[in-house]
Structure formats: structure tokens, C-alpha cells
């Protein structure tokens, strides 16, 4: 079993009504892209929160990662909308 702590920020956190969640990653969910599409299939709220136009991005070990990045070694993954600092 691959247990991962997901962190949610900003509008994603608000849409899901939570800032983090411990999940068991199903077999075959190997990349960030897989993770996002799995989130979409969970329920309507998640489907809307993770829809493509939301452009949700990910970070592992305090580093931005692209959608094809492998998540199989990650124990914590941050998910968030595009950053708007500065």
C-alpha cells in the first residue's frame, strides 16, 4: 500500500473544504497526471475542484514537479492552483 499525505492550498483547499488528506494511492496511479485524474473520479466536488481549467499543479519535497513526474516514492504531495505571489 502506498500511503500519501496530500496538501491542498488556496482555491483548491477552499473547494475541497480541507487543507490535507491521507490517501491510499491505487495501483496504476504512478504520475502526477494519474493522481489528478484519479482525484477527478472520486466525486463531483473533487471532479470540479480538479477540472482541467483549474490547472492544478503539484510539488514534491518542496520542489515544483511536472504532470509526468513519478509519485511512487513521494510520502507528501502538495496540490495547488497557479501561484500568484509577488
Amino acid at each position, binding site marked *: 500500500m502506498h500511503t500519501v499525505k496530500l496538501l491542498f492550498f*488556496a482555491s483548491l483547499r477552499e473547494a475541497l473544504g480541507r487543507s490535507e488528506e491521507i490517501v491510499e494511492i491505487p495501483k496504476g496511479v504512478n504520475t502526477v497526471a494519474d493522481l489528478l485524474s484519479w482525484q477527478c473520479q472520486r466525486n463531483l466536488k473533487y471532479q470540479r475542484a480538479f477540472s482541467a481549467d483549474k490547472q492544478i499543479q503539484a510539488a514534491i519535497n518542496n520542489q515544483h514537479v511536472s504532470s509526468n513526474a513519478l509519485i511512487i516514492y513521494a510520502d507528501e504531495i*502538495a496540490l495547488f*492552483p497557479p501561484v*500568484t*505571489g509577488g
Partner: protein
Amino acid sequence: MAFFVQKKDFCVNHELAKLQEKSSNIGAIVTFTGCVRGSVNGQLLSEMFLEYYPGMTEAELERIENEATKLWSLQAIVIIHRYGKLQPGDRIVMVATASVDRCSAFEASQFIMDNVKKRATFWKKESFTNGESCWVDNREQDFRRLQR
């Protein structure tokens, strides 16, 4: 090289003085200060809320500073970015770069600001006097959609 993510405001004079202590041969200091605007797309702003990802944000600012020092010969850099509730006119961020020459100070400051905007894990939520509020990223998308 220093970076701070903090709630409280900062004093530009104080930061410039600290910068100048770092080297006696500074000829040029460029500062960029980003502030909360009074209105956005004609809507009067009442408040801005800034969220950030503790740990990654500081790591990203440090990476950006390291990249800048490899690209330009800089004597000092400071980045200060606030979070939490801010009012119109408040300072949000300051980037200061010090160098022997003007061009390095300018170019490095722009490089750092561009990258803070693209990579530093902050998110802005704007509340307006008409009671509405929205995350800036959504507004950007709506704004772009409006312009199509």
C-alpha cells in the same frame, strides 16, 4: 543573500542600510516594491489575503537567489514577502539587489521578481467593497476569457 516570509510590514530604509553593511563597494541598489492596489479592473479593493506554502516557499526563494548570484555579480540580495491580511496601499513584497554596477542590479532585480511571480508558492485572494471576493488565479482566467 537573505529572504524573509513574514506577516509584518518592513522598513525599506532599514533593509537598504543592512544591504550596504554587506559591502563597502556597492555602487548601485535597485529595489522593487509590490503593493496592494486600490482597485482591480475598476472594482474597489477592501482587502487582500495572502496564503503561502511554508517550507517550499522559503526553499524556492533561496533557489531563485542562488540562480541570480550565478548570473550576475551581486554584493547583496534581500527578498521580503508578506502573507496574511493586507490593506490597499500595503507593501506585499520587496526585492533589493546591490551591485557595483547599475545594469547587474537592475537585471537581477527583474529576474528575481519574474521568478518570484512564476515560482514562489503564494496565492492572493482579493475582497472587494461590493462584498465579492475571489482568488487572483480565477480572476486572471476570467479576465483572459473576457478578453477573448
